[in-house]
């Protein structure tokens, strides 16, 4: 009974320590749990995989800020690695000012792994352009007028990769990585107005919001959270931080489930011994 009362009044810092252990331990000692690839991830993979080498470029938009890097950067890297390994040209951009550094970092990280590919011909970084929806619309009208120079200041006319890129017709598929509703703007303008194929990678919390677009065919495929990134890493055969992170996520989820069960056991077992006023706050009385 003493233990149950302890559980009921357990300091939340103990919970924090347990969560920290559950996350860190698998990172030190990986469990290598098998990853099952879902249909939503496979659809995006297939859409990119079927493109031939030196095809029309893939447009990647890094529309997130540093806070969601652990969740979204692995999927950005996985998709970039997929394109680079198949020699599919890639154009990287961002609609977020804080995404500029991340987009550049992601592209440069992957580019270093493929020294045979060259900047300007096989990949390009267009940097941040203010205007958001106006920029997305602008690409549909005239890519080079929207981006007169790349993210390093080189005139777009000097980049061979952009020579044949006039608008969305010359983009094989665009993939948006975001923790916000940015992908909806891409769907609204790039897909609905200009017919460009759109894929998305979003945080786990946002994923269920994006399902309706997937079912309606407005999204080619969807990567949701770290698990989506891990599944993509499995498909391209290059396990990265997401795959490692999945072990940690598994253990953390199990820990939370165990904590909830313990919390319930303690709550019900000690119910008779507690004062009625101690039971709960108003709202928690009725909801889980």
């Amino acid at each position, binding site marked *: 009974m003493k233990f149950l009362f302890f559980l009921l009044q357990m300091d939340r810092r103990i919970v924090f320590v347990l969560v920290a252990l559950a996350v860190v331990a698998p990172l030190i000692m990986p469990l290598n749990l098998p990853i099952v690839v879902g249909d939503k991830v496979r659809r995006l993979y297939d859409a990119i995989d079927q493109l031939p080498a030196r095809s029309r470029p893939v447009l990647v938009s890094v529309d997130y800020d540093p806070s969601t*890097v652990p969740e979204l950067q692995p999927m950005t890297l996985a998709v970039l690695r997929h394109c680079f390994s198949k020699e599919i040209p890639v154009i990287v951009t961002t609609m977020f000012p804080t995404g500029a550094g991340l987009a*550049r970092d992601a592209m440069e990280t992957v580019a270093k792994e493929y020294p045979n590919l060259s900047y300007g011909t096989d990949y390009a970084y267009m940097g941040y352009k203010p205007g958001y929806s106006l920029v997305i619309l602008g690409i549909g009208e005239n890519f080079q007028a929207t981006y007169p120079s790349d993210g390093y200041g080189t005139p777009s006319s000097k980049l061979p990769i952009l020579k044949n890129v006039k608008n969305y017709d010359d983009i094989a598929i665009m993939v948006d990585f975001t923790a916000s509703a940015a992908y909806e703007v891409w769907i609204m303008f790039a897909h609905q107005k200009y017919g460009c194929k759109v894929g998305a990678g979003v945080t786990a919390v946002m994923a*269920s919001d994006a399902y309706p677009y997937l079912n309606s065919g407005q999204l080619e495929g969807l990567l949701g*959270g770290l698990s989506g990134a891990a599944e993509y890493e499995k498909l391209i055969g290059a396990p990265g931080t997401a795959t490692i992170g999945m072990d940690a996520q598994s253990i953390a989820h199990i820990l939370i489930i165990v904590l909830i069960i313990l919390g319930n056991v303690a709550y019900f077992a000690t119910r008779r011994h507690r004062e009625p006023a101690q039971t709960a706050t108003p709202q928690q009385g009725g909801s889980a």
Partner: protein
Amino acid sequence: MMRRQVPLLICFVAGIVMLSQNFIPPLTWVYQQALEWARIISAIALFIGLISLVRVHTMKLKRKAANYRYSYVTLFALCYMIIAGFLTKYGLFVKLHAGCDTGSAWEWIVTALEKALNFQEIFLNVQIPIQATMFSLLAFYIASAAFRAFKARTFEATLLLIAAMIVMLGRVPLGQMIPGVKEITVWILDVPNTAAKRGIMIGVGLGMASTSLKIMLGIERTYLGMKD
């Protein structure tokens, strides 16, 4: 009288025009124009915000209010990033490098300053870890909130509890090893979850539209600081 009627009139006219542009294609330029204006206004507002921030913290310093030392950190960080941004943008260090001899003490100082004030480096090594840490707090808080609040007190609460556990299992490899869990997870997310969300969204949409109409008609005017 004027102080009250004029804003309400502007609000009404602007509301009608913006509503009409949805249905009258030649009016869409108004929307584009409004977007442009909004960008200009928010750029100016940022200055107002900056003034507010600086005033609040200098006041704290002047009054030596509780924890006033944190205000030094805020003001220092603000100035530091502004300077780093400008110096990086206008390539000052590139110019300074060009003007100094290789191996000289001056070059060493310029290199050190360049590293300390490199916007991209500060962004990658300070802002990303700090923001990612803040976001990661969610994992800890979800655990503590779930532990405290998830109690099977009623039938509905129990149902929610079970659904939550299945979804948590179904989202990770360990749980997916249990047959059927992934399928049930997908079903829970696709069907009851989406249905509930749509229900809330319809209510929210109607609420938004009704609030907008009330604002246009001047029935709802508290946002102007007026009594209803």
